[in-house]
């Protein structure tokens, strides 16, 4: 991990829902499982709270990858929030793909409060993918003129 990080240190924003994924991250911490330090976690009440503009804004402000973590489908604290989030994110990611932006930069993962190991694994994998992709230039400015 550290070798890859030498040249470019990517910034990764992780939106985590309060009830599952944030607790999952907590468990990863208390179980002493490591995940990359450049993953910045933003706690949200529910994955459904994440407005597509949040994700775009993160990219605009210099994120190289954005990941949304929520409760597993069917396990939402608010019954159905993650189902709506799922539809929204599918459409948003598909649109980003349509605009020619690398689709690996965005991701959705379902992580429960008991899945500290999964959280750590997902973040390590995602950070690796983003390191390989390098700096985010396309989403920072769609109208960039080279």
């Amino acid at each position, binding site marked *: 991990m550290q070798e890859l990080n030498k040249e470019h240190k990517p910034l990764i924003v992780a939106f985590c829902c309060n009830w599952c994924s944030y607790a999952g991250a907590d468990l990863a911490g208390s179980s002493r499982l490591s995940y990359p330090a450049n993953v910045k976690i933003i706690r949200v009440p529910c994955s459904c709270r994440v407005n597509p503009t949040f994700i775009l*804004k993160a990219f605009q402000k210099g994120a190289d990858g954005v990941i949304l973590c929520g409760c597993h*489908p069917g396990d939402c604290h608010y019954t159905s929030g993650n189902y709506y989030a*799922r539809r929204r994110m599918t*459409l948003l990611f*598909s*649109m980003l793909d349509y605009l020619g932006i690398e689709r690996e930069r965005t991701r959705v993962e379902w992580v429960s409060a008991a899945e500290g190991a999964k959280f750590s694994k997902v973040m390590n994998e995602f950070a690796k993918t983003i390191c390989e992709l390098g700096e985010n230039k396309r989403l920072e400015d769609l109208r960039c003129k080279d």
Partner: protein
Amino acid sequence: MQRLEVAFLEKAKELLSSGQVNRVLAYKKGEFCYDVSPAVFYSVEELENAVYNGFCGANLSKYLIQESKKEGKVAVFLKPCDTYSFNQLIKEHRVNRENVYVVGIECQGKFSIEKFYKTGVGFVASVQEDLDSVLVNGETKIDRNAVKLERCLVCKKQHVVYDELLVINEKKDGDLDRFEMVKKLEAMTADERFAFWKEQLSKCIRCNACRNVCPACTCTKCVFDNDDSQISSKANADSFEEKLFHIIRAFHVAGRCTDCGECSRVCPQNIPLHLLNRKYISDINEFYGEFEAGKDIAQKGPLTNYTTGDIEPNDFKGGNK
């Protein structure tokens, strides 16, 4: 075609003079024949300036949000595609249906003045319309399809909501595949797509015309105007909204966009904005089953609904790499 305009004027006069409505929302003449704008007429005398021709492309349904809330009844002339927008507004409780008398009017496809110029006719002083051709300045005959707005090559044809119909000739053409260009873009490589959109969106001058004209954009407080929002307003120095404006604009109407094509029609920079909306429509059709906004108001919108077996956001096929 002139018969239709006469019928339109007669109908408007009849509605006003009988007292059935106290105003009519239609189109008024401008300085030139192609310079037609939406207007409200309060009396039979004012109707002298009313007009209905191939340049009446504006979607009147958005004006009804305001007009339907005023006192008295308003009559409106809606084309087939306008009725979809109107129906969607009814669904969203944005218009007061009881205050509106809808006359579904015939439409044989509206014109784009730029397309006239492209044919090399020069100044367009007058246009005489026929079902499949137009006579410009009384001398040059042009095929009607050559000067139609792009959106009119794909036509909805049927009115979905009306109180009465004013149709003399049925529309026959307009059966092209509306997702043709979306499919073409998806078949390109990611780099080509990026280059395409960069070129298109770089033309944007952020005039907000696409937002202002859109019948699905009906928030009284818009994120693009609201200083307290996540996204700053136009005057601020933040560069965010300028760049990602178009993604957000299209997303805000995803699942509600009736594909009326007004955004592309009004764009002064000719950005094909409808291609963004159509991408959302084609995705919704593909992932969540066929859905046409504005067609059936009893149906739940795709983004306010879900099934437990929906596709995962990491798993869609997407365009070429």
